[in-house]
């Protein structure tokens, strides 16, 4: 198997983890061929997650903007409130199949941690989630959710005490315990085969959205827009359109306080190529090659790297990457709530904000498909504080 995307990706891990990655790859390739595995996965997506998720035409919002027609892929309506569960169910079923009894995961905002704790409860597995101490404080509700679901939350008080440090700690745990432990990575980053695995489990978003768009509008969308932190929801929806070169794919990175301010989380738009967490990709780093702290009002986009396949797509023009700053995302958050009665996650609000920015440049016959990757209940406090500043 090709473990790289052009120069990106690969398996930059300590030798001790190489056999664990080989075991994972083999188990996944076997599961992929097994109709029983697919059946179990599809059944849970339908009866437990509540798929398929609707494609919704945001008519009032589109009319108010006076331009293109904005369609929303409603991943916010999934069980646990975001797209993350598509991946955790797939990987947890794989873990079970491999005979592993313990799931570990990293989490930033806590959504992937919650989605992992959820499937651990569902499948009767032990679960430990690594989370930076700063995030534990910022996302206390999600910490309580994980604990309620029976998971152990391990605060990580190292480095910047955020997502990247949680991922380091999860990798360390896995290095010492891979015989009984499955590391459930939440995004399309990490060493191969994770970028492929997570993309495949998230590609249900794009497959559904493509079919739904054809059903509702009679044609393919003109642009598919998704936010990119690590990039799993974006890769999931993009994957449905890989064979449609006429459809423009747009990844929206967190511009924070602006690219020039240095306070952002835009790895592709504002970073340099490097190696972190097992893969070569665009990274935010300083002049010495040390990984730097990122900033975004949206905790889920606050990661200094990005999935290696996104880096490849950016270099080769297969997708287009832009940034949206905090304030523009907050405006989009408000607009969607007021015009459509939908409160989006701040992550998803970044994607929506880009659609809002360009909508007026196009006629109503143009379709902009936005991945509404999660719901915004978790962000109410953050938004309130942002507005007070």
């Amino acid at each position, binding site marked *: 198997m090709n473990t790289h995307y052009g120069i990106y990706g690969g*398996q*930059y*891990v300590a*030798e*001790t983890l*190489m*056999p664990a990655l080989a075991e994972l790859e083999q188990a996944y390739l076997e599961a992929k061929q097994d109709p029983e595995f697919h059946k179990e996965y599809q059944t849970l997506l339908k009866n437990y997650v509540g798929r398929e998720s609707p494609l919704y035409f945001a008519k009032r919002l589109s009319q108010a903007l006076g331009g293109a027609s904005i369609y929303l892929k409603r991943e916010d309506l999934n069980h646990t409130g975001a797209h993350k569960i598509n991946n955790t169910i797939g990987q947890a079923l794989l873990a079970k199949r491999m005979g592993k009894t313990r799931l570990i995961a990293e989490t930033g905002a806590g959504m992937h941690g919650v989605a992992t704790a959820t499937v651990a409860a569902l499948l009767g597995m032990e679960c430990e989630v690594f989370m930076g101490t700063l995030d534990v404080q910022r996302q206390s509700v999600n910490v309580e959710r994980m604990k309620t679901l029976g998971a152990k939350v391990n605060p990580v008080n*190292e480095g910047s005490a955020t997502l990247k440090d949680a991922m380091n700690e999860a990798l360390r745990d896995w290095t010492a315990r891979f015989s009984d432990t499955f590391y459930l990575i939440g995004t399309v980053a990490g060493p191969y085969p994770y970028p492929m695995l997570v993309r495949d489990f998230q590609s249900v978003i794009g497959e559904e959205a493509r079919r739904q768009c054809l059903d509702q509008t009679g044609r393919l969308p003109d642009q598919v827009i998704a936010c990119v932190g690590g990039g799993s929801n974006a890769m999931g929806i993009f994957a449905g359109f890989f064979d449609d070169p006429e459809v423009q794919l747009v990844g929206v990175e967190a511009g924070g306080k602006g690219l020039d301010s240095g306070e952002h989380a835009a790895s592709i738009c504002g970073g340099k190529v490097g190696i972190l*967490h097992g893969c070569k990709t665009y990274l935010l780093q300083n002049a010495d*090659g040390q990984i730097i702290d990122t900033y975004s009002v949206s905790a889920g986009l606050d990661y200094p790297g990005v999935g290696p396949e996104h880096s490849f797509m950016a270099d080769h023009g297969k997708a287009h990457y832009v940034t949206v700053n905090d304030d523009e995302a907050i405006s989009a958050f408000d607009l969607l709530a007021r015009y459509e009665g939908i409160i989006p996650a701040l992550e998803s609000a970044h994607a929506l904000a880009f659609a809002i920015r360009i909508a007026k440049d196009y006629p109503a016959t143009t379709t902009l498909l936005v991945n509404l990757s999660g719901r915004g209940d978790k962000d109410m406090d953050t938004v309130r504080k942002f507005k007070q500043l």
Partner: protein
Amino acid sequence: MDKLKKIFSQCRQENRAALIIFCSCGYPDMESSERAIETAIKAGADIIELGVPFSDPMADGSVIRKASEIAISKGTNLPKILDMAERLAIRFPETGFILFSYMNILYHYGLTKLCGKLKKIGLDGILAVDLPLEEKAELAQPCKENGLHLVALVSPATPLERARKIMADASGFVYSVNVCGVTGVRDLHPEEISQHLAVLKENSAVPIAAGFGINDGQAAQRLSRIADGVIVGSAFIKILSGAGDFSQRLEAARELITDLAKNVRRQP
């Protein structure tokens, strides 16, 4: 004969394992770590691993992580470490020096540029913790062009067939990790490790050095019976971060290295 080869061959003649010491460069600051390395060499270290700190040391235990964090906060970077390495290589021409880091730090500096520089200042090789066999080509090429060794790792989790491939391709020596996990002082299972080392040695044309978890002369003694080299890192750094002023800690470090150097000798 290249320097590492010379060191291992001399150790063989003296019926002992080579003593390899890892140092977190820039900890507690650049000047002090230079003194610490000097102390280690004078007390009997044959090879020094010059650890370049990285913000995200995913293969390291708490001792080296803490040291890396402090080193970075003091402004330590690769160019400063290369300046120090140049001075050390001139002062200690018999000692082997390996640059030791994570790939991002090396990649960021530029792999070709780095290898050219290391050759120029007289270093012997590079070890990148997160660079397995599958990814090594981009660094192996400039290493080869500049006569540098790219040191490979094997672990107890590495299947023998894979270990054979790694060792067939190895240069300088092979770093055999004693346990699955991160760096740090811990209880080792001597019999299992000895058995693993013996199998590796049977299958390797280059020397095998054992590391991870070695904290005293006794542990070094046991491993030296089989391994061609013994690597100590965390125990050294732990002493450098201990009580007392830095001169007192250096004295304690000197005692540790002296004891290790005595214990890498094989009993007749």
